[in-house]
């Protein structure tokens, strides 16, 4: 009962009670000391809240918003350029990788099975990288752009490093790569 009345009391303060509900509250207050005390405390609170004056935004507020908007737009277009550059570079690296593999096959330096394994593990690496990035993106929400860029940069440098390492190993010890028996 007191709880119901309390909710009605709150509605009276908010101007949301019907006249009948307001009358019900008034009737209860004359008989109940506890609710009557709450009513008085809430009345003071109501005065306090209602007397707090509205605040004025700083005079340069509109200009600051427009400046922030401009900055955001510049940053977005920069990151779009950066993103497309990244995609282009990754595509080039991928195409280059395939070309190297094709050339090796052509010259008969590598067993076709080994090339197949290298290709499939390369694809595996790329797809798992995508999943990691997607996961990071959902984890960090608003900073996913940054995470994606860092991730893509990392993936790209790792690919470059691996290709370089591979060339280095090849040049140092040609015997390390098993020469296939000539196919007839």
């Amino acid at each position, binding site marked *: 009962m007191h709880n119901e009345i309390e909710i009605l009391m709150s509605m009276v303060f908010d101007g949301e009670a019907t006249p009948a509900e307001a009358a019900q509250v008034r009737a209860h207050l004359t008989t109940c000391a506890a609710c009557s005390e709450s009513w008085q405390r809430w009345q003071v609170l109501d005065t306090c*809240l209602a007397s707090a004056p509205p*605040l*004025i*935004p700083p005079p340069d507020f509109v200009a600051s918003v427009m400046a922030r908007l401009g900055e955001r737009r510049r940053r977005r277009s920069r990151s779009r350029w950066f993103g497309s550059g990244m995609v282009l570079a990754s595509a080039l690296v991928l195409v280059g990788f395939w070309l190297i593999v094709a050339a090796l096959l052509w010259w008969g330096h590598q067993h076709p099975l080994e090339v197949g394994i290298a290709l499939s593990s390369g694809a595996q690496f790329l797809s798992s990288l995508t999943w990691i990035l997607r996961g990071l993106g959902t984890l960090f929400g608003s900073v996913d752009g940054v995470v994606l860029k860092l991730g893509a940069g990392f993936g790209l440098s790792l690919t470059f490093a691996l290709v370089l390492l591979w060339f280095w190993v090849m040049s140092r010890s040609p015997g390390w790569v098993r020469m296939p028996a000539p196919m007839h």
Partner: protein
Amino acid sequence: MDNQELLWLEQARRGDQLAFGKLVQAYQRPVYNLAYRMLGNAAEAEDAAQETFVRMYTKLHTYQSDRKLSSWVLSIASHYCIDRLRRRRFNWLSLDEEPVAAVLPSGGRGPEERALCRETRDEVQSLVDRLAPGYRAPLILRYWHDLSYAEIAQVMGLSVQAVKSRLHRARLQLADARVQSGATLVMTAAGAR
């Protein structure tokens, strides 16, 4: 919503910066007030209010004209402020544990008025600051934006029933906090003598 604002909105959607500036001009006060009451200080309020308008700009195409523009803008602002408060990871509901920082009421007010509402402007804010974000927003929209339950429900994406009960609980908590801070004030005043 008046036709002028609708026109600005249309122009802003087509990339007209000046028109968007007019909308910012028109809504800066309610948004800044909401942010200030939610976050409790001027620096954060200004930052949050600016961010609200940046978000509004990026969401212009999602606005549906069957909704009041003011309600849409306040909705963006209140959700942003609530997120921001939740990131602070403060234990909002510990109302009966730590007392409100004791601040002596400033002079210049008559005893009658003080008996009615002892709190200074800052103290009212420090009371509001103690409410959990989800309870704070309806109270602010009710007292400083004069919104009805139905309007608050629309801004916050709640049912009218939920708004009603949150305002009720906010009152209970604030009244308790006032009594406690009142006790602190009396003790501080006695100790100072």
